């Protein structure tokens, strides 16, 4: 949807302009207008977790967040977690541990894992499972995802 008013969003530390109507979701804006396609549209019902982002430091489903209701908030996607253009230690750990099969869930998994590790830098297997319980991997590649989160270098 491109109708609506012009809004400014704080996305990954930059101010970005977009057009949104009252019911346009944040996910539609960041994927279709702002070109960040890490967050995926899976279920569009808040169930699958593929669109998980951070809003003001809290986890959020971009598909359940209205774009107009996100103005003024700090939005961070998986792309925004890179460090000086390089993968963060967590992102590198997903690569090193082969924690990617089809890749559709990966951005959401990394954002949820990032949030978990902020509160708990060395989680147990059960704590990782709890922390990622809102993210579905339909390839069922959970073992390596859990390994990736627990094996972050320096974590």
């Amino acid at each position: 949807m491109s109708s609506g008013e012009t809004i400014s969003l704080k996305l990954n530390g930059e101010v970005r302009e977009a057009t949104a109507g009252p019911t346009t979701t944040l996910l539609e804006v960041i994927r279709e207008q702002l070109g960040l396609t890490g967050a995926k549209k899976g279920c569009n019902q808040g169930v699958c977790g593929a669109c998980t982002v951070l809003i003001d430091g809290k986890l959020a489903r971009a598909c359940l967040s209205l774009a107009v209701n996100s103005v003024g908030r700090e939005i961070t996607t998986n792309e925004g977690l890179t460090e000086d253009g390089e993968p963060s230690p967590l992102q590198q750990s997903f690569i090193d541990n082969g924690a990617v099969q089809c890749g559709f869930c990966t951005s959401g998994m990394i954002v949820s894992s990032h949030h978990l590790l902020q509160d708990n830098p060395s989680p147990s297997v059960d704590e990782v499972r709890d922390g990622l319980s809102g993210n579905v991997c339909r390839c069922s590649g959970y073992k390596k995802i859990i390994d990736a989160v627990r094996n972050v270098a320096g974590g």
Partner: protein
Amino acid sequence: MTEAGYSEPVSVDEVVTLLAADDEAKCVAGGASLVAMLNARLVEPSRLISLRHVEELQKIELAEDGWLRIGALVQHCDVAIAAELTEGNQVLSQAAGLIANPVIRDMGTIGGSVGHFDPAADYPVALAALGAEFEIAGANGRRSIPASEFFIDWYETALAPGDLITCIRVPPPPAGSAGVYEKLAKVKGDMGIAMVAVVMAMEGDAVSHLAVSVGGCGPTPIRLSDAEQALIGGRIDEAAIQNLGDKLSAASDPVDDVRASAAYRKILIPRLVARAIGQAKTKLGDGS
């Protein structure tokens, strides 16, 4: 369809005025339920009223009458760690910590959850056991409705068109009470098959306060005040617990769904009740 309107009021009065002016308008709190319904085109409101700048709705505070006021916009993640919830009232923080998954707990709000009133939701069960009340602002000012009268039927509450939940009022916990929230779900993060909330206090061997509510097993949370009262002043032994669990099971009206059959839920209720009361007794230091 014409494009919906959008407003960001800053006071409860403004919200009530906006709702009164447009009976197809909807308030947006966390968005977790409403935006999912918008995406599925199950609702098409004419106006969305964002509550995010209404300061009054965002805080937890102790009122002069000793009751706790939990603003409607307080998120589940913050209820789960609220230091203001002490003793038996911790049944509410335990319930909040078991809602769905970390993402939904970071988005969803207590007012949004109870207003939507999915009968498998966690808050209604705990709030029924606590004897909480709901403060509602409407065209005729504010009123407070007890939990026992607020939850009416599947997805139906005492909210009238134009009403806004402003806060959840939680009474002071009974002295020395303990709270236990028990939820059985197929996997972490799923809706519960059945839930039990217990608030209990003892004086020596005798029960001095008891509230037990059952959720997920009928249109509204189930409480049997007469059966609770009958146990006050006595020892609460295995037979008494079994008897209460059986009565709650008999009073339940569960449905068959994808998570469990109604018959399974009927069997489950006394077992969850026994487990929850057992944990409350342990917390209260009664090993009998």
